[in-house]
């Protein structure tokens, strides 16, 4: 509780205009160096190699692929997400460290795309996790992918002015809604190893939407996380 109060006080006390210079500088740096984890289950993945390699060269925007979610800034979901993979995507997303950004590529992440009729695919990705940028198209060309990444960079740069590049804060602030949608698909006993509510407290990002009916449901079934036994 003390820590949380401290953070809030700090934010409130910032009246010096020069204080924001450093914030802007940090945002600028953040937008110039992004590591990207790509979750390539759909066909949109085929447009990424040209976007990454020498033809379109994503690296000149400061974006590089990363192998693990814990060190990645961007989660790139390419193409359709089936209910089964959605579970894994959520697990991956929750493992990432904030600030984290999600990009949905292809029409499938927007609205199910050509699989809109299928019982097996999730339709709207931002029902289950906050999405920063959607790049529509079936599939989007590498130019479009780069355009989307540029937009994300601008959003991050202007985050404090326009409140655009901070969709990840919504996940903490409206956790109850997201959890409700997840429970709707995966059943009421759904839980992830990451304690989002505790994280929200730690970051000082709790909102009114953090708690609700669904989190109460979660609290009933949630099993505490125990350290794994070390064995040789």
């Amino acid at each position, binding site marked *: 509780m003390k820590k949380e109060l401290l953070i809030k006080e700090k934010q409130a006390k910032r009246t010096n205009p020069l204080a924001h210079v450093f914030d802007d500088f940090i945002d600028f740096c953040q937008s110039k160096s992004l590591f990207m984890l790509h979750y390539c289950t759909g066909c949109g993945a085929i447009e990424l190699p040209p976007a990454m390699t020498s033809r379109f060269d994503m690296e000149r925007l400061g974006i590089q692929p990363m192998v693990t979610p814990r060190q990645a800034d961007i989660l790139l979901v390419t193409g359709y997400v089936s209910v*089964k993979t959605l579970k894994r995507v959520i697990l991956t997303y929750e493992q990432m460290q904030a600030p984290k950004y999600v990009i949905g590529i292809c029409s499938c992440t927007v*609205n*199910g795309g050509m699989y809109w009729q299928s*019982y097996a695919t999730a339709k*709207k990705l931002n*029902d289950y996790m906050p999405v920063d940028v959607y790049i529509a198209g079936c599939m989007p060309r590498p130019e479009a992918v780069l355009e989307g990444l540029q937009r994300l960079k601008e959003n991050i740069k202007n985050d404090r002015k326009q409140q655009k590049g901070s969709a990840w804060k919504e996940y903490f602030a409206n956790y109850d809604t997201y959890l409700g949608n997840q429970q709707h*698909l*995966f059943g009421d006993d759904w839980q992830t190893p990451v304690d989002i509510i505790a994280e929200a407290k730690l970051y000082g990002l709790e909102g009114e939407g953090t708690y609700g009916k669904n989190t109460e449901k979660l609290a009933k079934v949630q099993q505490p996380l125990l350290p794994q036994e070390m064995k040789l």
Partner: protein
Amino acid sequence: MNDLNNKLNDILSRVNGIKITHKRNRRVRVDVPADSLTTLLELIKGQASYVHLSAITCVDWIKDNEFELVYHVWSYEENCLISAHTRIDRDEAKFVSVYDLYKPADFFERDIYEMYGVFFIGSPRMEKFILTEWHGMPPMRKDFDSEAYVQETFNWTEYNPDWLQELTDQGGGIAIKPEDIRLSGCLHNMATHRQRDKLKATQKVGKGWKS
């Protein structure tokens, strides 16, 4: 080739109630009653070298209230495929496993159990296979309405952002709205296509729209 066919016919004709159709040179369709299917498979495996079960297919004949099971069996020596068709009752949806004859039947039967709900007696693992998150009725059955399920379960993104309005004013934009197709209940709805053609004919087409 004819010798081979004659030989095969001799073997097949030992099975009760069998109907043999030679589709092509190396494709034989065989219709058998459900209770003599295992006899047939045992015969063609043991005496005619049909050792490879390439697939088991299931067809849902909802009007006849029957499931059709098709066993595709291949012979490497004669390079010939036999498709053994058999029909079982849809309500009961039970059949005997051929796992002891063909080991790969394990996967095919499990898949059919998951997708159609046909239980195979004697199959080693009659449990969830791919759809581990699925708790409803078997989704490949004809009476499962996938579209209704989707409408019930998922939300849709709305397609009317501001920037699209700008494009529409210029004469471009989306020709058929996704909602129109989705709610009409038919993917290839000719009415909407006709509507679009009419629109194209009557309205002046802007620069951004290539027809």
